[in-house]
């Protein structure tokens, strides 16, 4: 058996594997625990939580599209207090490594959420979701504006900066992604998560109206993978020292390696788990085998490999 160091880091958080759940695609882990051991993967990125319980958008919330799907959930969730009381202890009991994703309607709400999480032990990092497309007002998508993004991250950093790594989750639906990434890093983000879903729409031809209850939805799945690879590549090229958690349509070990080669230090698997509850351990195994087959002795040597001028330089 070849020796491979499969571990990775996102800022100062260490993980034994670079494969994670994707926020919003694993709830808080309980549902997937029947299919695999939550401790056996890199970590669980929980569904974005807000301060208060939220019902989310009306149904229909889903439309399958070619090699993907649209969702329009609208951040349904239990609220931060119930999440801390019930979900965190469960994940700790499973020995899962936890990245908590937070979402807010205002800059202050993000700070409030960070403050609530400050005293909670057992969390590896915080993902700050400033890019959920399923909100009532597109103006709330902070990640579309460098200044709004900066203010959110600045507020979170003032609360928990230095204690827990801050990962800013960004949207690809912007003209200049690198400018947004720079502004969140300047404000104190330790890493970025790329990409959130891409805003889309399906018209139902029976009703001749938008199919989703929320009209628009977030497109995910293999259909968006090339967008994600491009986004990771661009940001890694501009900010090579900023760790990236990559996601967007990863469905196999080769897809995960593509993102790592583009510059991702870790990879989240989302929609693939809907089609296959064992997708995450399967992809993790495939990625490990692929790295070994390509002669890597450490995952870290593969991160950003596509940026090297002599790509044949593996040995």
């Amino acid at each position, binding site marked *: 058996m070849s020796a491979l160091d499969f571990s990775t880091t996102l800022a100062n958080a260490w993980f034994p594997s670079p494969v994670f759940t994707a926020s*919003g*695609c*694993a*709830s808080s882990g*309980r*549902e*997937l*625990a*029947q*299919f695999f051991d939550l401790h056996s993967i890199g970590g669980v990125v929980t*569904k974005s939580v807000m301060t208060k319980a939220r*019902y*989310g*958008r*009306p*149904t*229909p*919330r*889903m439309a*399958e599209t*070619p*090699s*993907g*799907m649209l*969702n329009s*959930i609208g951040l*349904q969730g239990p609220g931060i207090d119930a999440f801390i009381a019930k979900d965190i202890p469960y994940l700790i009991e499973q020995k899962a490594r936890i990245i908590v994703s937070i979402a807010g309607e205002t800059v202050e709400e993000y700070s409030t959420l960070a403050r609530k999480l400050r005293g909670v032990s057992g969390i590896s990092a915080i993902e700050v979701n400033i890019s959920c497309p399923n909100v009532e007002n597109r103006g709330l998508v902070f990640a579309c504006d460098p200044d709004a993004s900066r203010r959110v991250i600045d507020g979170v950093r003032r609360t928990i900066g230095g204690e827990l790594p801050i990962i800013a989750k960004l949207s690809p639906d912007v003209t200049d992604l690198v400018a947004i990434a720079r502004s969140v890093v300047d404000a104190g983000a330790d890493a970025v998560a790329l990409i959130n879903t891409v805003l889309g729409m399906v018209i139902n031809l029976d009703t001749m109206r938008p199919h989703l*209850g929320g009209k628009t939805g977030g497109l995910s*799945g*293999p259909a968006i993978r090339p967008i994600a690879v491009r986004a990771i590549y661009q940001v890694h090229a501009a900010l090579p020292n900023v760790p990236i958690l990559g996601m967007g349509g990863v*469905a196999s070990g080769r897809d995960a390696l593509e993102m790592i080669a583009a510059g991702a230090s870790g990879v989240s698997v989302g*929609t*693939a*788990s*809907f*089609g*296959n*509850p*064992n997708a995450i351990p399967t992809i993790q195994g495939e990625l490990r085998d692929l790295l070994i087959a390509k002669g890597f002795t450490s995952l870290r040597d593969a991160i950003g490999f596509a940026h090297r001028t002599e790509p044949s330089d593996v040995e």
Partner: protein
Amino acid sequence: MAEINKNAQQLKAILVSNKRVGQYHQLIVNIGDVANLCKPGNFVAINVGGDTSRMVLRRAFAISRVSTNSISGGTMELIVAPHGQGSSWLCSQNEGSVLDVVVPLGTAFGIPTEPVQVLLVGGGYGSAPLFGLAEVLNARGCRVDMLLGASTASKIYAPMEGKRAVNSLRIYTEDGTMGQTGRVTDPIKALVDDLNIAVIYSCGPMAMLSAIDSITRGTEVVHQCAVEESMACGIGICMTCVLPTMDSDGNIAMLRSCIDGPVMDGENVMWDKVGKSL
């Protein structure tokens, strides 16, 4: 230990039989000992289209019946109408094909502890799981009466062998091409009174379930319904198949029809809020 999906397993399962029955296909799938874990009301999520498919989501189908003692081991029966790309692909699979299934999923119909009178109401192909349920209720000593309805005769699913477990079966079609002309919900009120029905079990379109609820709400009659909402995952992680509910303490929630359903207490569903913002 898993708290959710606790009997569910992902299996490579062989399709042992695929027969056309009118507008539907009857599929028999070998799931081995997992058949022992399947209860009436549970469903299965099946991968469609093969490895290179552009269809990335599983399709959910109610398990109509299981057999735990067939020659090839445990099997489940599915009644599938080939109306979309995924179901058409499934119905086109030959006997011997290997299917990727996750089973059993979801809640099951509650079986009364006493041999009470029950009424089963099915709409279209939604009636399929009621026949397996009828056998279980019959074995419990319940008197089982059944109503089946559809828009037209070709959409009625009523296998000969299924009728053995029921006391009476009445069929309703809206166009009068089979049975009596009208809606399956028309006779329910009179039957509930005449037969002293304790539980109604229903399976079919949401409008039918809602109409039954308007008859049973506020009465002593328990209404257990198997709901239909489109699902992406079937295992509780995508949050797309939610229904607005209110429990007896007045707590409102958007519950997932995959793990808190498909079988729900009809009185808990806020039928007038389905598809609307809470």
